[in-house]
């Protein structure tokens, strides 16, 4: 974590040509990047499982089709998530949205009845 913060501050100083004491900007950059790249990854990770499950359980897709379809959806989800997080005006809203969406997707993928036992 400290290494990330250090790098963040170097980048932030370089970007703004400002002083090292300007830490709120550093925090913002680190938070936004983490939310976009890592948070987006988590959402995408669970979106794949959820989409495949929905497509098989509720739709009429075969497992092979559902697996490939989830890949296509994941691409859109990750790209959209990164752009959306960076477009959001407030970081609190962005983190909250990531948490809610992730919880929803985990709920669909894990808790929803219908998953057969793993082979």
């Amino acid at each position, binding site marked *: 974590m400290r290494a990330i913060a250090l790098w963040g501050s170097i980048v932030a100083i*370089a970007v703004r040509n400002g002083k090292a004491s300007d830490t709120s900007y550093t925090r913002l950059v680190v938070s936004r990047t983490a939310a976009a790249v890592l948070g987006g990854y988590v959402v995408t990770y669970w979106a794949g499982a959820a989409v*495949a499950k929905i497509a098989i359980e509720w739709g009429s897709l075969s497992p092979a089709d559902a697996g*490939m379809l989830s890949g296509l959806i994941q691409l859109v989800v990750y790209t959209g998530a990164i752009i959306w997080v960076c477009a959001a005006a407030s970081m609190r809203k962005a983190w909250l949205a990531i948490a809610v969406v992730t919880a929803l997707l985990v709920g669909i993928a894990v808790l929803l009845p219908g998953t057969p036992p793993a082979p």
Partner: protein
Amino acid sequence: MEKSLTQRMDWLHTWFGLVLGWLAFALFLTGTIAVFWFEIQHWAQPELHGAKMLSPEATLQYSVDYLQKVAPDSRRWAVTLPDLERHPLLVLNWLDQNNAQQFARLVPDGSGRKVTTVTNGGRFFVDFHWTFNREVQDLSGRTFQWTYMLSGFVGVAFLICTITGLVVHKKIFRNFFTFRRQAKSVQTRWLDAHNVLGVLSWPFQFMIVLTGLAFYSYLYIPTGMQMAGRYPSPPGVAVVGGGGPGMLWGRYASDAVGKVAGNIVEPGNPAPNVPIADLFARAQAEMGTLSSFTVNNPGRDNATVRFGGTRARPDAITFTADSMTFDGATGRVISPAGNTVNAVQKITNVFGGLHFGFFGGTAMRFLYFLCGTAGTIMIGSGLVMFTAKRRAKAKSAAARRFYEFVDRMNVTAVGGAMFACASYLWALRLLPQSLSDPTGGFSGGVYASIRAVPLDQAMRSDLELYIFWLAWGVAAVHALVRAPHKAWAEQFAAVAALCIGLPVIGYLVPNCDIGSMIAAGDWKMVAVDLGGLCIGLMLACAAWKMSSKRVDVRVGNAVRAPALSPAE
């Protein structure tokens, strides 16, 4: 952070573009070269140069006769027919008495000459383009491959940059027509070049990165595939491996010698068979150009003959996986031609077809190459712009050091990648053929992957890769020790010299000189040499411009340029 939406998108465009642009440049460069990977594969195998090729029918008859002679009692023959237009190489496989696989890689001119050069050739560029040159594992292995995860992330970053690029360049129509070549500030000129290239080729850039990602998207974060794998699948349909690297690269007219042992059927009684040439004609009438055929138990009453169509046809964008199987004794059709792929697989096959650009013939490939070049230059100019824009305005010493570091990284990423590719092409031409893997190599069908072996055990294909990475390392060290503006010019000059030298070094190796190849009419080989020459001349021009004093002054020292955001 920045106040408005445009500014935040600008921030995203700038920083994703910079940090991942270093890798994206290498991916774009190798991807652009890979458009012609078959031609480079041909160029790298001197035995094939200038050979008078047989017609498809004669090639088939020749391979049947050859196999009849060496392995009349084999349980299986498997033949990869030459791609006469792009990479004519005939690969014959058969099982010997002990059901061990034997093979011969031949020049398809009926002379029986073998191709002994075992090389990564142009295929290296394809593999580097999406794995950074690490071994591609079978999908069913599901091993975590950080290299293609990384290339996938670079792809997503590039996709984001194409989208945010649209947002920050709101005056897109004006940008299209704006190129202030005489502008006083270097930054303005770089900005305009970046914008013109980006806007002009935007549809291509967006399409190529989207299709590339979509085709393999289920590989990167395979949670969907894993979930689908927990459901029982209908018989005959495998969830994973239906399409993927194995399917695509299978043995599509490349020199991979695939494993053919497996599902061996016990031979029946000797019986007269229908001539394979007749079945070939029937299959060709149904499926067009054929790329392979397999015969089980030739000369027996349970013989079967299977013909494979080409994966990619010039008249269809999508990939196809047509095949047709005959009963070898009676000539009856066992399974008819027909593309039986899943619905979603059909969609991804279209994405794949668009990305790989096998359709439309040579003209289309040149268009892909040109657009890819535009994209490569766009990334490079974007990287340069980052420092050109900021260095002059750097206030603190830390900021100045940071921009200097970025500048050196830019040289390493841009100059170094080009230097490594050009050195690799020299290695393909100059490494002695005798170093080739004596067993023929690549029996698993895998090409470019680094093997860590001592230098004295290294084969030709290993040395080619060592030279690639060594050259990049040398360029990186050079970029670290030289002043950036000198390093730029020197590395461009070095790459230019290597590219211009490509036709010249052909004269050092038998059967590779451009003069006699023109006489023999081997235009595939000549085109690679001449392409290298043209690119070399353009790079020399660029190096000369960079080395001139006026650029040095403007890039190196602070110029009071009017502040200009990309939104302008």
